[in-house]
């Protein structure tokens, strides 16, 4: 690009300084009344009025403009096709946002007396009911703040159950293709991680798994559908074997979207599974959170679920906040302050009610149909990682790029210029140069076709030998390829006048 503007702006994409490089002392974007004069009771710990904290002063219109300009440098699911495998970037209905902001929900304090929050407790109970019916499981812990904390919840329940049995089992089996959170979580519960290899067809190697079983095995952490986008055909055998060996079956439910309303995890023999409400039930990803990761439990693990939890009594709904209220429960502790991600329960329940039992079944079917359609269209040029049908995401390796001088990363960056968010790259690690593509159920056939046409045209361009073009992509973004190595070598993690 030789065309230059004086300002550095590019049409609607405007350059924007940091807020710390704008503003004037004495300016503010809020109008607050002057406090009445009172005798301070700060115990002699008042902050020095003459020493700056370092917050710039901006008016409200400056702030609105600043963040609006920043927003224009972001790609979201509202902006376009976002086929990020394993992340399930589906439509985020605005009805969910509206109901989450209702008075009587958004303005509730977590420590209000129970008599004043019966509707909130009923809402949590309803959300829990939907999750239990959809998974076929008898219990659910609603409080985990995210999928990763859901894993922690499930694995801590397993650890507590083993401790209650007086067994010192410390080895957890984790497939090579697992999300990095799985081994990190197991380690946080004092377990050691033992990897299970994958077979030629992208699933857990049953023989290798069986060979690893022993009386020191606490359990298995398996993602199903797995991170290769495939259903683990032997899942019931895996469940039976781990149970026979005295261990538990933790299922990473990140890919529940593919089977919701069609397969109940309880029917597969799992003991615990987290559900990412931001994936399967459409709560927005928010540029990295907040998430929410309720965990469903089998009868064996249900007593160990953490506090708090909601119970229905003759007098209404009751929130159990202490481990002392017996009723047969042996909670392993508390995972976060207060009661969980209420704001996410509202959105997920609104989504579930909107779909209903019929719509959720249709949604998972359409997600799988879209992924297989995309797989069928792209496999004419791209190399499929594993044969057969996929679930809600399609996995390719980089064989098709061999000899072109173009890498998976280069291709992904070129896809950005075509107006799409790239697929997930280099994950799962079991496949060389992986490209994991997940269209989700909320995409039209037309948008999938447009994406496939664009990818196929880029592959043709790569095959034609224009690797230089790819090395320099993207061309049209607010920033071109960023130097991540430099960022890590000499980290600049905050603004300061000296590095301005």
């Amino acid at each position, binding site marked *: 690009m030789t065309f230059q503007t004086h300002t550095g702006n590019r049409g609607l994409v405007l350059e924007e300084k940091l807020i710390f490089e704008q*503003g004037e*002392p004495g300016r*503010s*974007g*809020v109008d*607050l009344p002057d*406090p*009445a004069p009172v005798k301070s009771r700060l*115990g002699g710990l008042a*902050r020095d009025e003459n020493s700056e*904290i370092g*917050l710039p002063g901006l008016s*409200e219109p400056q702030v609105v403009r600043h963040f609006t300009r920043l*927003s*224009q440098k*972001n790609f*979201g699911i509202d902006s376009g096709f976002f086929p990020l495998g394993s992340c399930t*970037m589906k439509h985020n209905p605005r*009805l969910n946002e509206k*109901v989450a902001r209702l*008075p*009587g*929900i958004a303005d*509730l304090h*977590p420590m*209000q*007396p129970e008599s004043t929050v019966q*509707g*909130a407790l009923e809402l949590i109970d309803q959300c829990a009911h939907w999750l239990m019916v959809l998974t076929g499981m008898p219990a659910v812990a609603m409080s985990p703040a*995210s999928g*990763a904390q859901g*894993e922690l919840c499930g694995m*801590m329940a397993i650890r507590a159950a083993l401790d209650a049995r007086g067994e010192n089992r410390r080895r957890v089996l984790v497939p090579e293709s697992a*999300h*990095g959170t799985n081994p*990190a979580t197991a380690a946080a519960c004092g377990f050691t991680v033992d990897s299970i290899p994958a077979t030629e067809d992208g699933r857990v190697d049953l023989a290798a798994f069986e060979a690893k079983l022993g009386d020191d095995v606490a359990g298995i952490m398996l993602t199903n559908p797995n991170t290769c986008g*495939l*259903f683990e055909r032997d899942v019931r055998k895996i469940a039976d074997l781990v149970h026979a060996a005295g261990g538990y079956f933790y299922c990473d439910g990140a890919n529940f979207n593919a*089977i919701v309303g069609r397969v*109940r995890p309880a029917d597969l023999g799992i003991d615990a599974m987290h559900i990412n409400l931001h994936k399967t039930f459409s709560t*927005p*990803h928010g540029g*990295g*959170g*907040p998430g*929410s990761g309720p965990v469903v439990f089998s009868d064996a693990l249900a007593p160990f679920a953490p506090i708090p939890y909601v119970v229905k009594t003759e007098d209404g709904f009751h929130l159990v906040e202490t481990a002392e209220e017996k009723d047969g429960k042996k909670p392993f*502790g508390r995972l976060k302050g207060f009661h*969980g991600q209420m704001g996410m329960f*509202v959105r997920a329940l609104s989504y579930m*009610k909107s779909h209903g039992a019929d719509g959720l079944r249709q*949604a998972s079917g*359409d997600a799988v149909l*879209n992924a297989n359609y995309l797989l069928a269209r792209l496999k004419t040029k791209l190399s499929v990682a594993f044969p057969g049908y996929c679930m809600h995401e399609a996995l390719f390796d980089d064989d098709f790029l061999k000899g072109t001088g173009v890498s998976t990363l280069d291709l992904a*960056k070129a896809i950005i210029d075509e107006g799409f*968010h790239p697929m997930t790259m280099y994950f799962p690690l079991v496949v060389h140069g992986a490209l994991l593509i997940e269209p989700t159920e909320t995409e*039209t*056939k037309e948008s999938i076709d447009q994406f496939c046409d664009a990818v196929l045209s880029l592959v043709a361009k790569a095959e034609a030998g224009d690797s230089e073009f790819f090395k320099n992509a993207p061309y049209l973004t607010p920033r*071109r390829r960023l130097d*991540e190595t430099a960022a890590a070598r000499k*980290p600049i993690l905050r603004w300061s006048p000296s590095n301005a």
Partner: protein
Amino acid sequence: MRYLPLTQADRASMLETIGAGSVDELYSDVPEGALLKEPVDLPHHQGEMQVERDMAQLAAKNMGTASAPSFLGAGAYRHHIPATVDYIIQRGEFLTAYTPYQPEIAQGTLQYLFEFQTQVASITEMDVANASMWDGATSCAEAVLMACRATRRKKAVLSGGLHPHYREVTETYCQYSDTEVAGRDGHPEHQATADELDDLIDDQTACVVVQYPDVFGRLADHTKLAEACHAKGALLVVVFTEAVAFGAIKSPGSFGADIVCGEGQSIGNALGYGGPYVGLFATTSKLVRQMPGRLCGETVDQDGKRGFVLTLSTREQHIRREKATSNICTNSGLCSLAFTVHMSLLGEDGYRKLAAINHERAVTTADALDAVDCVEVVNDSFFNEFTVKLSKPAAEVVEALVARGILAGVPLSRLYPNRDDLGQYMLVAVTETNTDDDIAALAAALKEVLA
């Protein structure tokens, strides 16, 4: 189904391209008998109007803090949120984006994270802050684990002034990592001084954790405690639940804290019945590689222009797996945006003024309550929350005030169900949202109920 765009004709033509006879055929890897043939036993889909009506009915069964004088705190605070905050966080490009793994098309998210990190570091007077944790309690637990990693020691000393939920979460996180959690019970009328914790610090102590202001609302200078920690090779962790406070009180960094963590809900985030909230986490440059969670860093692009990326990810779970500093993956991205927007609106003057108003409202309330017979304000010092001792069990008094349309404070029995000695104490939190009428109503109602 309004969210599903495929038509029957689309589905038929797509199946033809795939070469499959039906959608069920795509599920052929599912074991025999596990594939449901019919929808599960739940209601069928509803239109937007009906769902909205259902949810509004649930909401109407609650008594919201916006519709009553409310003095609830204990780790979550009702503040006014400027309309601009909610408008910005609902912009689709922020709301519906993913973790910024493709920095070229995520500069919006990355830049605000960098601004957020700078704001958090500034108000706490620490060198660096991360791009947020899930909430204050999990932030506290991660701080303790980090202190153990950094010092290679196994003992954490928790002050009795620490919020009980924070203590419980920390104990839960530590229970399987052979970290020993020690400490003493707190009491609103027995000030936990540096000396009280001093004798618990030994050469096995990784950190001492104090809350500031503490759970009973009290303020204490922790300079000496920091010195005592450092003399024995331990770290000082300072926890907070009210981020507005640092506009009025000395920062934890000025005491010599090594890790500062807490709850950011107060700035820009709704009460929302307890979540989602935003955990803040800051530390010294020396300890940055021990930090849990995401960090955003400044760099340049291939044209030499300033840009931002996620960085130092070699500490994280997706690279280091079982050797990662933490298993945290998703953070509280959008809540940190709300924090950043609100803090940008406030600015230096607004932040200090907001804090001053909170303190003034609290002093005014404390004076009004002290004038009521059978109510005693026990704090010498406080920011916007303090403890009162009542002549009757606080939980009963709170229920009686609900009947009068007032959401009074949090009875300590709610936080400490096993402590009979705390039954008559109540935490009262006051913010800029509390009017003179609210304060008068609370005092009058207490007078009536305690008479």
